């Protein structure tokens, strides 16, 4: 049995490292346990990290954190076999402090984040797989590792990510099912920075991200997205796990189909595949948020189902910080009971993301129930656009009628502006 800690944190992703950082900064004795060989070894996302959230913990983090590119261009492409209708925004202000969001490689960024916690005094244990909680009555009193090592502690923060296996074991949540997850694969291709910038019409250092709708997972809710890193490009393709299972589709094939689309292929021409990754994303939404606290126990980040729209890693950071601050308060009072730990849930309930999740409620269920909505919309938009842009020997009136006929065939939930808003939320890549 090793020495006693004020807190052990399971998982050195954004949630765990932020929790460890907040506690260590308050003088607590903290162990941060990570099963990967280094923080980030097991983690992948699209992805972009929102600046405001990170800066609230680490002001001007862009001066020291390993970031790829600040994103100045965001686009949604409604893809059909040989065409795309695109919707986009380019904001060059986003290339300046305080920035908007950055593309990030998790294998680097998570290490930097864990290092912030280490510098504040937390002890990082890499290659350390936690298999159980250690209990004293109803109190979580530390953890047990796969090798049988025990880390006794006054409090445990579960920041173990999407699968939340320890949270389930601890009775914080019921079993999750296939429909609670989307599963993504990611192909990362190296491409020299100068070529990348030329291809994506970027000035040196600037970044872009593109979302692809309606292809390649025709007939089921699946999405793809492309992110520019410093000298590589990442292409993610994903789908709800229950859909994947029901439809018998194969993700590597879908991913390669995206990669081979004539409009995507040209963006990746000559780029060399460097890595293939897979990861799940918890999409259970508000209804599946688990119990967030117990005696000596808190759950944060993906393990707490805190995903809202395109926000995930940032929410993990913010919720981890709240969890860490709560444990620091508990330590100051010498009370780690659930009454004290409830402060975390109270604080969480006042955050923008918790409120967003609550408000989103079932609204996005439409897309879940109408699996082919994206596909149909994409098809119709492209059909209409083909007719609109085609120079034909027709009167304007005839042309207008053809386009309207094409659009009338769309069966989507969009009826008014608030539906468009919902759609925009849904089409963003997560």
């Amino acid at each position, binding site marked *: 049995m090793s020495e006693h800690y004020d807190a052990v944190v399971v998982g050195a992703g954004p949630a765990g490292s932020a929790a460890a950082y907040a506690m260590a900064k308050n003088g607590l004795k903290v*162990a941060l346990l990570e099963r*990967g*060989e*280094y923080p*980030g*070894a*097991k*983690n*992948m996302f699209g992805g972009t990290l929102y600046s405001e959230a990170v800066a609230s913990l680490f002001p001007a983090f862009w001066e*020291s*954190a*390993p970031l790829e590119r600040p994103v100045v261009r965001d686009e949604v492409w409604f893809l059909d076999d040989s065409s795309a209708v695109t919707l986009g925004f380019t904001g060059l202000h986003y290339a300046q402090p305080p920035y908007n969001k950055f593309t990030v*490689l998790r*294998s*680097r960024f998570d*290490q*930097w984040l864990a*290092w912030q916690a280490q510098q504040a005094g937390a002890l990082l*244990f*890499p*290659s*350390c*797989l936690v*298999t159980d909680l250690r209990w004293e009555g109803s109190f979580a009193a530390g953890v047990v590792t*796969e*090798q049988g*090592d025990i880390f006794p502690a006054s409090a445990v923060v579960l920041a173990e990510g*999407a*699968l939340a*296996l320890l949270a389930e074991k601890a009775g914080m949540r019921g079993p*999750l099912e296939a429909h*609670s*997850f989307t*599963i993504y*694969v990611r*192909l*990362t291709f190296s491409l020299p920075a100068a070529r990348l910038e030329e291809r994506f019409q970027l000035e040196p250092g600037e970044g872009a991200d593109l979302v692809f709708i309606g292809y390649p997972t025709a007939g089921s809710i699946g999405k793809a997205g492309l992110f520019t*890193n410093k000298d590589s490009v*990442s292409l993610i393709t994903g789908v709800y*796990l229950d859909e*994947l*299972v029901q439809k*018998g*589709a*194969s*993700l*590597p*094939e879908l991913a*390669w*189909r995206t990669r*081979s689309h004539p409009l995507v292929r040209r963006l990746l021409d000559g780029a*060399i*595949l*460097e*890595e*293939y*990754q*897979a*990861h*799940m994303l918890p999409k259970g939404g508000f209804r599946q948020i688990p119990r967030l606290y117990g005696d000596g126990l808190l759950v944060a980040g993906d393990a707490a189902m805190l995903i809202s729209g395109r926000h995930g890693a940032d929410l993990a950071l913010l919720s981890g910080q709240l969890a860490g601050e709560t444990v620091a308060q508990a330590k100051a009072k010498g009370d780690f009971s659930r009454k004290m730990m409830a402060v975390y849930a109270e604080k969480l309930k006042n955050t923008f993301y918790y409120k967003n999740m609550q408000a989103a409620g079932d609204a996005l269920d439409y897309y879940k129930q109408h699996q082919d909505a994206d596909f149909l919309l994409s098809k119709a938009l492209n059909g209409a656009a083909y007719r609109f842009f085609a120079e034909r020997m027709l009167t304007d009136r005839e042309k207008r009628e053809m386009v309207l006929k094409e659009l009338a065939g769309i069966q989507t939930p969009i009826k008014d502006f608030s539906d468009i808003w919902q759609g925009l939320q849904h089409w963003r890549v997560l």
Partner: protein
Amino acid sequence: MTPDLQSPAPENRGPLPPGHSADDAWQPPSQGREKLVAEDLLKATHLRPAPAGFISIADAQVCRARCPRKPCLVFCPSQVFSWEYDHVHVDDQRCLECGACLFGCPEQNIDWYYPPGGAGVAYRY
């Protein structure tokens, strides 16, 4: 257990795991090929050998008798599962640790837990 007191080198990409040089970079197959199996993609990923057996099929009879579609053969993103004569063969050295098999097997017939600390995938991107 000893804590890691070393600083990462934030300027560098996540440490290039030993034994993996940039020369290992895999070339994509010929242009225009639509179908690609995980086999080809996986060559680009760095996997540390894990002691065999962290994934297993709980009851082979269930696969034979109760699961006509055998979805695990398809939903696993790295084709860890394959059908051999009368049972599901498991190649746990290819596992990307996504956890999908815990939720995707309709019979909950797959025993899966993380490989031991430090083993398995070590992503570089």
